[in-house]
């Protein structure tokens, strides 16, 4: 690594923090500098660590307003504002004292863009490092989100979007012989089997219309905190990370003769809301946490750098064999519209017993706010739609409330571009499409393109889970939601 362990971005962050001691803000509206505003800012002092995803230390705020622009601008949410304290603009919560009392969905976009370290992603590296050094863990199991495999390269001078999965597998080997690596693609395939089955059942019975995906924890948070009347529309499926996690803490111990508590399970995600999701009460298997730690892409990069591992120069490796068969459908989960596309491939198969005539639903791709596709089977049409970014979901929810929403299946991803634009990824200049590119290329070149054709998964169903939405599957792979309306 010869002295190149600091990336350009880290260097910039350090430099920028040193440079900008104070800066200014964007407060919207006319109530700027009103006594009300000033009072609210008073209580926003100090360090706020109440969120699972992000931490705020207002004393470091330089008042640049990036966080507010991301939260209210790009995300269309109403959590942060700029207030004036001691004559200086500072970031503050708009309606609450702490993040846990706010309707913050934990998307992490504010932290991703904060140049001063006033808002940061909650770091799990210390937990992971402790686990790596803890001999009581017989296995440290890693899973890597589809998009994470295509983003991490950017930190190691590899062009945006390149598939780094083979390098990642080698990197995990370097962390020691107890480490196992899997791709969340496999979890995504399970999700599609469960979700598409659930959807097809609902579709036939005319229930849950529109049926909404549940793999984005930012979106689930939004529903629970802001729009709990959408809970009946949510799929009961856990996210791919949690589904694979459930198997890692049930099927994997069974196969290896270990106990679930001897396994430490780390998920590397592009997402900060996943840090909350893993901590949800329901996300356990027989009382054992399914996912023990969530690292963002950036944190994983930091881990590799701290260990002197230069990802780009590693030889190619392979993921471990237990969950090794994956499909292109699982990989495209990392792009907005990808879940919808993968689900439609399998839903078509489940309804007709045949593969869809065209496997690629190109109208669901790209970075538009709302994208749609129609699948016609025996004169009946499934109207599918992908909502790209939480800011675009409000209108959709209004339509659902008014009964004017025409869709049967709606995918929602809270971050623009889907996971590819997640709060745990490096800042991107330009369209998230550049990251999607790699995902779709992988899909195009993979032999297995649909989740129901994932051989390993079919075997696990036959051997362990019986069938999608069976009782075993329901216990391990499904969950429930409750209103936490603020």
């Amino acid at each position: 690594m010869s002295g190149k362990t600091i990336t350009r971005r880290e260097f910039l962050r350090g430099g920028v923090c040193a440079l900008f001691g104070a800066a200014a803000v964007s407060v919207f509206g006319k109530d700027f500098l009103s006594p009300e505003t000033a009072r609210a800012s008073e209580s926003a002092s100090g360090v706020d660590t109440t969120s699972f995803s992000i931490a705020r230390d207002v004393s470091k705020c330089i008042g640049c307003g990036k966080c507010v622009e991301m939260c209210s601008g790009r995300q269309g949410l109403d959590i942060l504002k700029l207030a004036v304290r001691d004559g200086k603009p500072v970031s503050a919560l708009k309606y609450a004292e702490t993040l846990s009392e706010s309707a913050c969905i934990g998307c992490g976009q504010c932290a991703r863009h904060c140049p001063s370290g006033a808002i940061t992603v909650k770091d799990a590296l210390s937990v992971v490092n402790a686990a790596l050094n803890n001999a009581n863990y017989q296995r440290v199991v890693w899973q890597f989100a589809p998009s994470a495999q295509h983003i991490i390269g950017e930190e190691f001078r590899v062009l945006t979007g390149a598939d780094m999965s083979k390098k990642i597998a080698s990197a995990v080997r370097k962390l020691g012989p107890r480490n196992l690596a899997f791709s969340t693609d496999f979890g995504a395939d399970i999700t599609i089997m469960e979700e598409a089955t659930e959807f097809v059942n609902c579709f036939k019975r005319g229930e849950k219309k529109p049926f909404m995906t549940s793999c984005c924890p930012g979106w689930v948070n939004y529903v629970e905190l802001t729009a709990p009347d959408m809970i009946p529309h949510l799929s009961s499926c856990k996210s791919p990370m949690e589904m694979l996690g459930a198997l890692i803490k049930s099927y994997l111990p069974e196969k290896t003769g270990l106990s679930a508590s001897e396994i430490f399970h780390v998920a590397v995600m592009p997402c900060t809301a996943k840090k909350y999701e893993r901590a949800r009460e329901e996300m356990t298997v027989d009382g054992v946490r399914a996912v023990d730690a969530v690292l963002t892409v950036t944190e994983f990069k930091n881990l590799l750098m701290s260990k002197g591992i230069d990802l780009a120069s590693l030889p190619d490796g392979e993921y471990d064999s237990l969950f090794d068969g994956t499909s292109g459908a699982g990989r495209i989960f990392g792009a907005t519209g990808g879940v919808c596309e993968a689900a439609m491939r399998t839903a078509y198969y489940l309804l007709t017993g045949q593969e869809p005539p065209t496997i690629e639903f190109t109208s669901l791709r790209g970075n538009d706010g709302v994208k749609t596709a129609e699948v016609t089977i025996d004169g009946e049409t499934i109207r599918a739609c992908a909502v790209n970014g939480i800011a675009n979901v409000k209108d959709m929810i209004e339509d659902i409330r008014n009964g004017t929403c025409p869709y049967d299946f709606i995918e929602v991803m809270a971050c623009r571009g889907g996971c590819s634009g997640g709060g745990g990824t490096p800042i991107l200049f330009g369209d998230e499409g550049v990251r999607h590119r790699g995902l779709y290329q992988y899909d195009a070149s993979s032999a297995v393109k649909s989740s129901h054709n994932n051989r390993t998964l079919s075997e696990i169903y036959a051997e362990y889970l019986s069938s999608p939405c069976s009782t075993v599957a329901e216990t391990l792979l499904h969950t429930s939601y409750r209103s936490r309306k603020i």
Partner: protein
Amino acid sequence: MRRVFYIAALVCLLVATLSHVTALPVSAADGDAVILIDGKQASEYAEISKGAHTVAARSEAEIVCVAVYENGQFKAASFHAPLTYDFPDSGAEIALFCLDSAFRPLRDAVRVRQGAAFAKLVYSGAAVCYDLYNEDYPDFEDYTVRLKVVTDNGKIADIREIAGYRLNTQTPTNDVNAGLLADAAKTIPGVIITKQSANIAEADAVTGATCSSDAIARAVADALTHTPEPYEESSGEASAPIADGVYSGSAHCLTGYLNYMVDVDVTVKDGVVTEIQDRTLKTPMSSNDKVLYSVAWRSVSKGIAKAKMKADAFQSADGVTGATVSTAGINAAVRNALKTRSAATKESGDLYAPEGISLYARVYPVVAVKNNRIANIRIVPGKESDTEALEAFAGEIVASQSVAGLTWPDAIQDDAFSIANLTDQILYGKGVLK
């Protein structure tokens, strides 16, 4: 008036907005932008020297501006507009309005500090030597001392082209005065450079030429209050008259928070600059660059139209508050155009750049796309980048019309990767790169 001399360490002025939200924050930082007046914080600045002050104003268009300074330090200025407000054009007005009203006492300090963007700067100044009762020199007549001060990174590095003129003319003064001035000029510049202050002691003055000594010092002080120009080795050299035509030139504006290229087309007719066309704003820029540039551009372009500047003695408009680097950049670009006299280049296509990146003042590409092909990549270099090597590298991208399969040359690998990866990121969504 007392001589005011500013010693600067660092001021950051930052306007950071994303295009879809119409908030326009500007700020300057950091702890050490202290104003020193004759080496001390002067009492006339007491009102800004103690405690924190916030100035807020609201414009007709419901734009609120807030400026903060504390203990004599410029802290922050911010602008808040209704969401419907149309930036950046209006942003320019607001920035001007706010900075002007709130920071009048500080703006000169900020200006000089910002001028330090160009590592070496030349300031021109003048002072009059009045000496009514000098019995030794009955021929003495009052005269004007003009000189140039060269600063290097905020320090006075050289005082040159010291010359005496008859009052308010360009005619050289008489030989006696010239001799006295030459005497003073032998030692006084050295004293000023050593002290890094134009406030020379009486004992420093050259015996028999006290008035001229003092005039030099005052001319230096005067120079430092004006807008500087970038230092050019060949400045002052005579050149042939400029033929009618349109010439193009560019200059690089680079500070801790700004990083962009100014591009202008200058029209010369009968030896006079009749028009300056701006191409800078056609290049994608970050919003902070854009606002400050617009402020400068408006002021400079208005001035030019009025002034009918002589092409061979182009004099810049004075610095625009809060946008001095940009003003200096425009002036430098115009002078470059008139110096190199290169024919105006027509726009080579659509331009793309990573918006927002200049916050980090690092190397980035501005890519010209024509017929869905990369026509050209211009490197906007950072503080320490090897521009030549990067240009060669960018040439490879243009030649292959792709960023795939490139290797990053050892000495410039981080910068080269940035150029390639940013080109990829900004062009992929446009369908130019696959």
